[in-house]
């Protein structure tokens, strides 16, 4: 445990001093600010049942596709290319500790960046004193459940990024691999569910599976404060499975 904490703190420090972290943070926050402003503009133009926060969170996947690869692509690929991973593995640490420390460091930044977007509704509230409650800018239960979804699904997305980084020595390839895997993880189930299939047993099975994996349906449920244990189980279990595979890959590729 002590070694894991040392590794985690070291990873955090390395991320803090890395320019790519700040580039990812800037791009993410700038993009999210634009999305939030657009959500407010939409609300001012036409009346809608959907709150600006729901509109804003429904586009969470766009920045995730860029931010997660930027945050995670260097983590293992770069260290393997430089040879520093091999040097690290000659100390009494395990591959699992290394992978978990890298994952939690990236996840910490992911959560931190999303937490920064909480300032958007707060700033909006500061400047729009009238009719805030009616506009639904700061509905606390919706805010908590919506961000809860972002944080829980984010664990899986960051784990995908770390896994992609362990597959190659090239940072760019790791980034592209991560982008493709994330795209499939977020949009894949939705795309499959739109396919027209003959009404048989296989189609039923596929429909049940895609319902279970449908990211946007999970987001919708969470945004409506409908908490279901199945998405929790899906995201957390997939995260652990991916991290376990990553640690095996890291160990195997290092030898």
């Amino acid at each position, binding site marked *: 445990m002590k070694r894991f904490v040392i590794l985690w703190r070291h990873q955090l420090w390395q991320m803090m001093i890395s320019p790519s972290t700040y580039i990812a943070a800037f791009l993410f926050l700038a993009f999210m600010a634009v999305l939030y402003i657009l959500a407010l503009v939409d609300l001012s133009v036409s009346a809608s049942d959907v709150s600006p926060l729901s509109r804003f969170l429904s586009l969470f996947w766009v920045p995730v596709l860029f931010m997660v690869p930027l945050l995670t692509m260097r983590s293992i690929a770069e260290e393997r290319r430089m*040879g*520093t991973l091999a040097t690290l593995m*000659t100390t009494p640490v395990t591959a699992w500790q290394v992978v978990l420390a890298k994952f939690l460091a990236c996840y910490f930044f992911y959560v931190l960046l999303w937490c920064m977007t909480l300032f958007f509704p707060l700033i909006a509230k500061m400047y729009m004193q009238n009719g805030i409650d009616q506009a639904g800018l700061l509905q606390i239960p919706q805010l908590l459940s919506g961000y809860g979804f972002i944080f829980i699904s984010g664990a899986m997305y960051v784990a995908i990024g770390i896994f992609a980084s362990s597959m190659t020595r090239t940072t760019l390839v790791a980034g592209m691999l991560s982008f493709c895997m994330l795209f499939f993880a977020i949009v894949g189930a939705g795309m499959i569910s739109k396919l027209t299939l003959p009404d048989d047993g296989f189609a039923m099975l596929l429909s049940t599976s895609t319902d279970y994996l449908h990211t946007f349906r999970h987001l919708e449920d969470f945004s409506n404060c409908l908490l279901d244990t199945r998405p929790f189980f899906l995201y957390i279990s997939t995260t652990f499975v991916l991290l376990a595979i990553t640690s095996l890959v890291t160990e195997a590729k290092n*030898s």
Partner: protein
Amino acid sequence: MEEISQDVPNSVIVRRLTKTYGAVKALNNVSFRIGKGEIVGFLGPNGAGKSTTMRILSGLMPASSGSVYICGVSVATRPDMARKHIGFMPENNPLPEDLRVSEYLKFRARIKDVPSSEIDKRVNEAMEICQLQHKASSKIIGNLSKGFRQRVGIADSILARPEVIIMDEPTIGLDPHQIIAIRELINSLRGKMSVIISSHILPEIELMCDRVMIINQGSIVASGTSESLRKDFISKDKYEVSLRCAPEEFGGIIANLGNDLQIEKSAQSQDGYYNYVLSTSQTRGDLGALLVRELSMDTRFALREVAYKKPSLEEIFMSATRRSWEQISKNIYTKSGSTSEIESSNGGAK
């Protein structure tokens, strides 16, 4: 389960180590021991298996078969315990580019279980030994010269005061001043830590190491002190002679001296002197007096120099690897011969 070996006085015990990559045998039944405080040089041509051996010793790579014990702990069954006894400096010495030297060394000390109260002391001590204290301690590693980077790698390997230090090419790319500094540093570790050094710079190995191991084609082909290896692998004495005598005449004089003396090399210098390398099948090293006496009798020769030429480690290395190649070729020839014999007998049966 054999986790703790009883042979504690040896820091490193390697038994019948084999590593295969598909059909290729990178290491073939390699066995050796390294005593406490001993400095051992590991030599071999490219692809001989040096780095593979070092990576297995440091727990980075599993062996296909065989066992490795570091301070009595099995690397295969207790890699985390074994790594506590090792300081490893890999080839090319990879370091994180964006950290400061002191920052990096403190992280390495923490991860190597150095007690918190001692971290600053140990880091300062390692930087002092490697002469990093004044110039480089607060510099970013990415901005350091090759020599300073090597020193950071060495400081890291001695930081936790391990019993065994493994260094893969520690002097590669260094200037002569830096090589001397690192040689002195490694010499200062003698008796305190067991050090395994792999290098292509053979005179360096001879100067630094108590013992030399030569590996070729995945097998140890020679092991011992440089003196014992000279006896084992060098079958000729050599003498350097410098005098004014043309090779035609000198050949006759040498033949008359007996002792199987022969001219191996000859070259004329600009001042009119001829420089010869003489060889003899005897290995007593006592023909110097005879050569001086006989060659100084004729004043025309103006004898300038007679010197016994000590065989270099390079010659031992060449001889040992050549011998192993000959052995391999012989084995292949024997095998193919016996195969063709079998084939021909089968053909006869048909």
